[in-house]
């Protein structure tokens, strides 16, 4: 206890001395020890005068850098994404993909013809593997009765996610006859896109049964991902355990 009091006394003396010392180091310029900060300078480590940031901008200092919250500049598109997989499935060449990435969403009519050709190319691959003349194995109207031109027009010219503010979100819900009203993290978007491409009118044309190639689904499920979380709805990153 004595020791404690002793330490407490010493601490009090120290604090008093410290506070006394501080009285003499305030930055007022009405003292007579020479002005501490009389002239605003561009290297005093504070934002003063007409500076826009700390020691930058204003009439005296050099302009502020980006890290001083300058948002100026012209920003030019490098990538864009609407519906999942559209560019990668239908943008057959690197050149086409690059062009698609820097195109305006509202100005995509030039891509429709290429998309349709790519769609037919998939069928040609399987015609060859199945030893069927390529002219005899072609895209057939899908579950929405879209022919190749309409399908690829919707994929190219109108490539955005549709999201309904007053309707349930689904990429495709056959039961409730809903399509493209948004995209949940859990939606099997690739499976649905493959069904539109290879499923024909009944959606099961090339589903792997009856000797057909399995092209309407990749048979991959979300696995152990948790899609029930609240905002931001995404799981924390995986770590090395």
């Amino acid at each position, binding site marked *: 206890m004595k020791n404690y009091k002793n330490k407490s006394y010493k601490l009090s003396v120290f604090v008093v001395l410290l506070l006394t010392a501080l009285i003499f180091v305030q930055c007022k310029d009405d003292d007579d020890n020479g002005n501490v900060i009389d002239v605003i300078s561009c290297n005093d480590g504070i934002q003063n005068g007409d500076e826009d940031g700390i020691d930058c901008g204003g009439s005296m200092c050099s302009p502020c850098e980006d*890290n001083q919250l300058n*948002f*100026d*500049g*012209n*920003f*030019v*598109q*490098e*990538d*864009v*994404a*609407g519906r*999942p*997989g559209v560019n*990668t499935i239908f*943008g*057959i*060449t*690197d050149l086409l*993909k690059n062009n698609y*990435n*820097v195109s305006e*969403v*509202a100005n995509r009519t030039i891509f429709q013809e290429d998309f349709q050709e790519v769609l037919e*190319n998939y069928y040609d691959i399987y015609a*060859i*593997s199945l030893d069927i003349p390529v002219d005899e194995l072609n895209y057939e109207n899908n579950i*929405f009765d879209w022919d190749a031109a309409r399908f690829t027009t*919707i994929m190219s*010219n*109108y490539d*955005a*996610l*549709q*999201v*309904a*503010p*007053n*309707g*349930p979100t689904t990429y495709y819900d056959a039961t409730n006859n809903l399509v*493209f*009203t948004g*995209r*949940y*993290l859990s939606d099997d*978007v*690739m499976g649905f896109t493959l069904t539109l491409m290879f499923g024909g009118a009944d959606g099961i044309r090339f589903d*792997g049964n009856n000797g057909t190639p399995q092209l309407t689904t990749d*048979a*991959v*499920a979300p696995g152990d*991902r948790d899609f029930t979380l609240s905002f*931001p709805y*995404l*799981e*924390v*990153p*995986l*770590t090395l355990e």
Partner: protein
Amino acid sequence: MKKTKLLTIIGGFSLLLLSFIFMSLDHIDATNVAGTSSDIADFFAFEGDNPDNTVFVATIQGILAPGVVTENASFDENVLIEFNIDNTGDFIEDLVIQAIKRGDSIYFFGPVIPNRTGLESDVLTSAPNHIVQISTTEETFITNEDDMSFFAGPRRDPSYFDFNRFIDIANGDAAPEGFYPPGESTDFFVGLNVLAIAVEVPNSLLGNAPQHILESQGTISGLPPAYNVWVSTKRKE
């Protein structure tokens, strides 16, 4: 089959082969953007836990292995990430929500009417803005302000697809079988992370939705009105 036709097909086949080396959900994009800080991996838009809200999620810079690669991944101060909302049905953005990194945070602007549409933008600094500290692999930061929520940082990749088998299909190595049956398929993204940006906004800030595009273009009736939305990345010149 005529030889010329066959050659044409083989040519097309080769193009497909080349193409699908860069594949899936935009995850692994074409050469000009692949592996850069502006490379979009995937995009989601859905009704929030609050049904009066819409959520926008963009994943970028996929694919990140857990550990050092994820810990070192960072947003680029020169890349503007833009959620675009068309509420009139012409596929031109009527509103944007912008996100850009400064320091250890992401600054969000909007939803706001852009002063330019299309391929070029400037940061709309006079719009309502919100700031969220960038989350780390260990700590999550969320900003909830003005009935909106904001997040930016590394997350587990939510996308799933048998990417490798798709390459096989394009190569002809999976013909005539196609994809693997359940149990034999492999989710390429199951063990990977991405950088993510997420925003939840009240629908009242997004205007009325236009007629669903598939009503007119897809000859499907009975669909609810729907915004057309997309995400873009734009680099400072």
